[in-house]
């Protein structure tokens, strides 16, 4: 019964366990197939898939920029990005008779507002609104206050759209943070102080916000994929346990990790070609299938046949200044020192 023993010393890490069933169920309803992503409401309404993807990126980029202005933690931004992407799986960006679509920035601002509350990183409404106005006008120093017309427009939009967003999201507000899962994995293997590894994995996670990866994989898979990619990048090998590779201990399939990594790799390939420099990340891609799952990753490492990106983010180059690219850099910085 009551034992007098008091826990002393560092508790052994709890073994990874699957998230509670209710969470799995909720997450499941927001996972889609590649084909389904092409059936998103905006695409059904006539926006091309490429364009839709660009708008998503711009929306997430908006979240990241406002978030940085408000010094919000990356975890909150990633939750907002998840909300944003989920929202677009149920609502269109295009007006139809009887339906007035929200602008992607409006959705982004609202999901960010919601995420700050959900993740307990509240900011004053006023600060949030001001940051939105500045980012929307692309003028980070713009003088904005309650006299500004845009101020009220943004504020009202955020407040009035909130319940639409909540309803659309089915109140599925608990997004398991891939950052936390990844960090727990690092701790599990006792490598949380390996700064190179930690930063690399963290950066992969942050950059993946710009993709639709959250609609394809669970947070756990995304976390494992970033760790996998990070470990490969910095050449760290995580230990097997009872003869099982680490990802199995973490309840993840290698195939999913590979698919997720490839998706993340697309960002880098697309952006590096823009600068004309070879991306250091090029080696990231690997065939998803046909690989012996037992192969230690150090062996799979070298082969990175550059296949054309499956659903390439090819058009990220289109936006003149490389919206996407800028955001990546920023987010990476934001992250690393956190």
């Amino acid at each position: 019964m009551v034992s007098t023993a008091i826990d002393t010393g560092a508790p052994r890490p709890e073994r990874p366990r699957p998230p509670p069933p209710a969470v799995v169920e909720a997450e499941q309803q927001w996972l889609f197939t590649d084909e389904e992503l092409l059936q998103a409401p905006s695409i059904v309404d006539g926006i091309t898939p490429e364009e839709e993807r660009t708008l998503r990126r711009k929306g997430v980029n908006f979240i990241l920029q406002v978030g940085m202005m408000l010094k919000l933690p990356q975890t909150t931004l990633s939750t907002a990005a998840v909300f944003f992407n989920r929202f677009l799986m149920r609502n269109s960006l295009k007006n139809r008779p009887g339906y007035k679509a929200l602008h992607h920035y409006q959705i982004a601002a609202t999901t960010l507002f919601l995420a700050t509350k959900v993740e307990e990183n509240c900011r004053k409404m006023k600060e949030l609104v001001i940051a939105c106005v500045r980012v929307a006008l692309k003028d980070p120093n713009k003088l904005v206050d309650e006299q500004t017309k845009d101020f009220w427009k943004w504020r009202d939009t955020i407040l009035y759209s909130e319940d639409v967003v909540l309803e659309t999201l089915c109140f599925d507000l608990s997004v398991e943070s891939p950052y936390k899962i990844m960090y727990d994995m690092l701790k599990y293997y006792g490598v949380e102080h390996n700064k190179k590894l930690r930063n690399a994995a963290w950066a992969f996670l942050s950059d993946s916000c710009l993709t639709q990866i959250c609609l394809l994989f669970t947070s756990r898979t995304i976390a494992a994929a970033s760790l996998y990619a990070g470990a490969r990048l910095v050449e760290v090998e995580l230990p097997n346990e009872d003869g099982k590779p680490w990802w199995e201990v973490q309840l993840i399939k290698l195939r999913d990790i590979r698919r997720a990594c490839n998706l993340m790799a697309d960002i880098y390939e697309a952006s590096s070609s823009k600068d004309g420099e070879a991306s250091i990340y090029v080696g990231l891609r690997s065939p998803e299938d046909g690989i012996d799952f037992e192969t230690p990753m150090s062996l799979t490492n070298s082969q990175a046949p550059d296949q054309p990106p499956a659903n390439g983010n090819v058009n990220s180059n289109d936006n003149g200044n490389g919206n996407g690219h800028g955001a990546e850099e920023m987010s990476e910085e934001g992250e690393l020192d956190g």
Partner: protein
Amino acid sequence: MANTTAAATPPKGITRRFHGCSKIGEYEMIQKLGEGTFGEVHKARDRRSGKMYALKKILMHNEKDGFPITALREIKLLKIISHDNVLKLEEMAVERPKAEGRKRAILYMVTPYMSHDLSGLLDNPDVQFTVAQIKCYMLQLFKGLRYLHDNHILHRDMKAANLLISNRGRLQIADFGLARHYDEPVPQRGRGNGEARRDYTSLVVTRWYRPPELLLSLRRYTPAIDLWGAGCVFGEMFKRKPILTGHSDINQAQIIFELVGSPNNESMPGWDSLPGAQSVKDWPRQTGSITNKFNMLGRTGLDLFQKLLMLDWKKRINAIDAIEHPYFKEDPKPMREEDIPRFNDSHELDRRNARKDHLPAAPAGGTVGGGPNGEWTGPGGPPNTGGPWMNGDRQRYGARDQGPPGVPAGGRGGFDRRPPGYENGGPPQGRHQPDWGNGGRERGPGYGGGRHGNGPPPGDRRHILPHQARHGPGGGDRDTYIPSYEGGARPREDRRSRGPDERPGDGRRGSRDSGNSRDGFINDRPDHNRGYGGRDRAGDSRNFGRERRDGRTRSRSPDRRDRNRDRDRDIYRR
């Protein structure tokens, strides 16, 4: 998952059905069960399945901060848990006003309809509990707690009124408005409740159920706090009334020590370094009277009881071990849920009505799922008064306070839907008072009535209830199906016994909202208050000594108020 049509074909859209939020049209409203600080509660039938649910409306008029953060927290938590002994959030329901223009939607939390809450049942003289039945309920309570703690959740508002009981003998823990994620390792078999490495706000738990370590302001508390509450409930089932009814935080600590003995380095290691320990040191030594007072529990029952009410929070029994306690293995064996007699609803209703006259105090605070019925409602509709009957608290307030000077009446933003009286009332000065001593005041018997006008609250009496406000934030949230006992006229006497908790809280909270929050925004902010206010809930008690005093003035001075609010806010954040 849902459809996987070839990408090449013309897009048809996603055909899957999303679950978690439906239109209010799916429900047929049957009757209004009550109105709490945070909204109305209706009993409704799901047209799809025919099942009965309790729908709690979340108020968000004019909210300056949008959807209340406390409600978000509660929803978030409820969505990740599922256990037979925890009230389930079935889904959310949305009502979009038809009117043109951008009107915000009205949102409801949908939970199963439970016919009673434990506090209500214990209040009903016609309901008798056998030992076997008590064991059955306690086991269910421990199973629910084991589940919550194992999933890193602290309930932080354990009390009889938050335990709902169905007509099939099922007990469920409700009201997660104060709950939060617990960042530490979970309790292990045979090892107590572990230790916490970080600080949490100590402003939690309704006073009567608040453990000694919280009364002494321990910030690094553990799931042991919920077990203390479970112990109080255990005793309450035998005594049929709350067992530790302190009228202030200090008094609460005193009566705890009278019951279980004064703290010393053996019974409560580390107690003297807790922030609140100073005043306790001068108190006369107590040896504890628990064995005499609770000998009706039997030897093993008493053993379990003492392990639950152990001063040393590190050794207090955890839920896993409590389930395995010999008490549940010996005769009489715990009854099976299905064998528990049903309590007739109408019966209950009668009782409620009766109670309303005589026993004003009950706290029912049911909460979310609350016991709708449990409390008072019944088919008959609310007992007393008309409109405003809602929470008793409110009513009272209305009458009594006039509102803070300077604040336009009506401005109360928060909870809007309250009865008019309430609304205007600003917070009276009294209200703000810290809880303390008076904390309970609101609820207490006293809160009764208009007695205190605007003035500062009378010092005494009020205390009766602890107040914790359950509803924390601003009342806002929590709601409760609170009936109106309060409304009744007679409150006082009885009150004393039971009611504190709930109500007081509300009241207070309410006040706070109105009062405090008001500072900045007169109008809209309901939320805000609500949200942040929540914290206060607990607040009452917070420091023993200190604040009481300024509490009084607090309401008058805006600055202070602000400050206070900020402080609350901070706390909140934790």
